[in-house]
């Protein structure tokens, strides 16, 4: 179960309160875009095994969209931030090393993956 914090209303809750909305920071292809750029925008995805920037909606809360950085290899949520951000935040681009010992000492401190 993921734990997410909505940056719009500040509520921290389990993933059942939120709806996932796919990859973030896609630049919309406008009129006159060549086919390959449109294909990249519409279909192609990085699908990383690692940090993934993605959209979420606080569906059963304030209803607003926001963005999150989450590692698809460990299921850690590294941070959430405003949907008005256009570039992936540099400080969330890499997953901090996993400290398994700390996890074992304080299981409740971190979002259980």
């Amino acid at each position, binding site marked *: 179960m993921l734990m997410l914090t909505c940056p719009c209303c500040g509520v921290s809750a389990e993933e059942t309160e939120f709806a996932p909305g796919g990859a973030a920071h896609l630049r919309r292809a406008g009129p006159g875009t060549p086919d390959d750029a449109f294909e990249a925008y519409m279909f192609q995805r990085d699908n990383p095994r690692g940090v993934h920037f993605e959209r979420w909606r606080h569906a059963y809360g304030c209803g607003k969209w926001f963005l999150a950085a989450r590692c698809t290899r460990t299921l850690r949520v590294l941070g959430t931030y405003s949907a008005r951000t256009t570039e992936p935040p540099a400080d969330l681009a890499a997953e901090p090393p996993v400290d398994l010992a700390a996890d074992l000492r304080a299981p409740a401190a971190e979002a259980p*993956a």
Partner: protein
Amino acid sequence: MRMSHSALALVRGALTGHTGWPRTWDSPLPRDRYKVIVVGAGGHGLATAYYLGRNHGITDVAVLEKGWLGGGNTGRNTTIIRSNYLQDASSAIYEKSRALYEGLSQELNYNVMFSPRGVMMLAQTEHEVRGYLRTARANYLQGVETRFITPEEVQKRVPIIRLDGPRYPVLGALWQPRAGTARHDAVAWGYARACSAMGMHILENCEVTGVRSDAGRVSGVETTRGAIGCERLAIVVAGHSGRLAQMAGFRLPVESVTLQALVSEPVKPCMDVVVMANTVHGYLSQSDKGEMVIGGGADGFNNFTQRGSWHHIEETVRALVETFPMLSRLKMLRQWGGVVDMTGDRSPILSPTPLGGCYINCGWGTGGFKAIPGSGWAMAEMVANEAPGPLAAPFGLERFREGRFIDESVAAGVAH
């Protein structure tokens, strides 16, 4: 040495304490170079290798597997085999596959336990009734045997079902009598055994970490067991396709998510068909051991951990209990997940790639077990001729750019 499997061999085995069985496939050292390298020893990769040898006489082949053979989705699925899809291109490859399953045990001399017990897709809304009537007619034109059956026939075939809802009454079903299940591991093992017998190399614990190319054409791969050269490369790695594509220098319209399944404690035989309930996102069959095998929808976000969200299991079971009240008394024994490769139109990709000599087979998502023989057949044809044949041609990567989707999001509305 490869021993032929027969009733006599079984008796001999029983009398000698089952100590004399040879290894099912060999474990050789990698050679420097092969004509064809297949990445991924799941069902699709192994079937690709098998039909390369059987149909095209190409046996200078290695199948590279980062873990153990069949340890990906092939060993994690709920084994439903059916071909009642909507679009002609899908029906062609899925029905080819289902038909090959019918004779696969004989062909491989390995019991894959194909059981054409019939698959029933419940219609639980008026919309679904109309959808399945349409599918039944499409299947009729495609030469795939299906028909729409009444609630009474559903009840007769599945006594444990409750027809009257309350939320989702059973209004009928799409019935495919020659669909069914097979033993997933045996499919992988049977193909592996046949490949090994043809002299192909199956290299486990051999992860591909890079793709080498020369003047726009593939020349080999880097692996955790050293560099290996090849003339042609077939990438068949399901949820990990994006990574392999990145190594080969292109991007894919694929995202990887977790799909989960679970089984109950074993009970006496109570249901001898497969039932799928797409509206409530759940499906059910009973294994030969007596366990009720349950699956549902895929999780909603990208995930490479093979661990899914608990609430999806809860939703699946909650929905199924309504239609199958007896399930509420069962204890669940095991639950697991696999990393499935989803495309936007829920149809697979069998395609040449921007890198010469490199071919990809992926995007089977939640429903590729049923397709293993047909997909291997079509992939082998493409790799052997360096061009897609009629089965693979509609599934090329260019279909996304061209807006020529093979939309099966309805036929594959639930994961299976």
